[in-house]
């Protein structure tokens, strides 16, 4: 039986190897769109032809995300336990379409009014939006001689929310020596991402003035004209890591109802354990 079992095993493994590609075993046979089912890691494995991404991201955006990665993970890629946030996914989108509505007036550091189109196809149904920001990059880190106050007027042009006018929000903030400017647009985007909108068309009107001498006029705002859109998401799928889960592990199945007593009387429980341990020794 030993020999026949060995032959059977050899036959089974050769049959497996003869299989052109084991990955179809993992994928549903009904021809549905598989790519959304598998995390990107397996997609590459399953279709083996690891084609390079069609579009290469903006270098400044890549630099920003690499800094974010170093903040959240070690060199080996282990998520740092110190992070307190609940999102396990951060997606940065560059506008796939933009055009200037009106030229900017450099007298007060105004940027041209921009129409921006973001395509959010990569956001999966299991990813819930926690926060979103528009990220402007300063072309070169400058320390402004005095505080600069900026007002950014954002308006979502499409999809139009039913009934009400286009949602808009003015933002003002003080700009000192920043490399990036993050404008929180969560309240504007939340309803759109929740309703699984996949493309968002917004217009941004950005004006900055110097606090001390607004009448000075001309100063050049060294901002990149087109911002990136960053979404902080909580991926609720099984293969995503849920740090709060490791913070509050589920109760062990072996724990019976009396275990709750130990929680109520930790001191008695500790002496009991000590006594039984001494007795066992």
């Amino acid at each position, binding site marked *: 039986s030993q020999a026949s079992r060995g032959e059977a095993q050899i036959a089974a493994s050769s049959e497996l190897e003869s299989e052109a590609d084991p990955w179809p075993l993992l994928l549903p046979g009904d021809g549905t769109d598989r790519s959304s089912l598998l995390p990107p890691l397996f997609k590459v494995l399953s279709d083996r032809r690891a084609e390079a991404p069609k579009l290469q991201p903006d270098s400044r955006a890549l630099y920003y995300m690499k800094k974010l990665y170093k903040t959240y993970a070690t060199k080996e890629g282990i998520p740092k336990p110190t992070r307190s946030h609940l999102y396990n*996914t951060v997606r940065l989108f560059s506008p796939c379409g933009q055009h200037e509505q009106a030229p900017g007036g450099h007298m007060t550091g105004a940027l041209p009014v921009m129409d921006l189109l973001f395509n959010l196809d*990569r956001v999966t149904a299991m990813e819930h939006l926690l926060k979103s920001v528009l990220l402007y990059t300063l072309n070169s880190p400058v320390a402004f001689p005095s505080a600069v106050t900026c007002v950014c007027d954002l308006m979502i042009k499409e999809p139009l929310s039913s009934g009400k006018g286009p949602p808009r929000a003015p933002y003002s903030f003080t700009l000192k020596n920043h490399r990036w400017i993050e404008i929180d647009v969560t309240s504007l985007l939340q309803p759109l991402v929740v309703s699984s909108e996949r493309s968002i068309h917004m217009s941004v009107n950005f004006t900055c003035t110097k606090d001390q001498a607004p009448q000075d006029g001309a100063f050049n705002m060294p901002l990149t004209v087109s911002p990136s859109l960053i979404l902080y998401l909580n991926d609720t799928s099984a293969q995503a890591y849920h740090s709060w889960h490791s913070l509050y592990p589920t109760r062990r199945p072996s724990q019976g109802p009396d275990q709750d007593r130990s929680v109520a009387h930790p001191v008695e429980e500790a002496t009991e354990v000590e006594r039984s341990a001494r007795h066992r020794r």
Partner: protein
Amino acid sequence: GQETINLESKKPLTPSFNLSEYFKQFLFPQNECELHDFRLSFSQLKWDNWIVAPHRYNPRYCKGDCPRAVRHRYGSPVHTMVQNIIYEKLDPSVPRPSCVPGKYSPLSVLTIEPDGSIAYKEYEDMIATRCTCR
């Protein structure tokens, strides 16, 4: 058994086995089930055109023989010992307990998506951190 005891007691006490052989059975087996490193870089898998970070990834793996008394070191359920006894005493076609990962840690990955967007994602169970016998 009285006469056998008398016979035994008359026999000269000669060491019927050498001690080193005897103690060998208590040494830990050389290739006992344990965690092994396997450091790879995503460029070896030709994934580095879409995985930006980390550069190195050590998923680790478990390899080795499961000792018979697995409970004390591997946190195995009693079922594992039962399976071992079945293999040894009743039916060798039942496989011995296998050395497999029992605990994992997550991995953070920075990727460039096909549409050019950039994604930071944390995946569960990507690095084996402890082995067990099951």
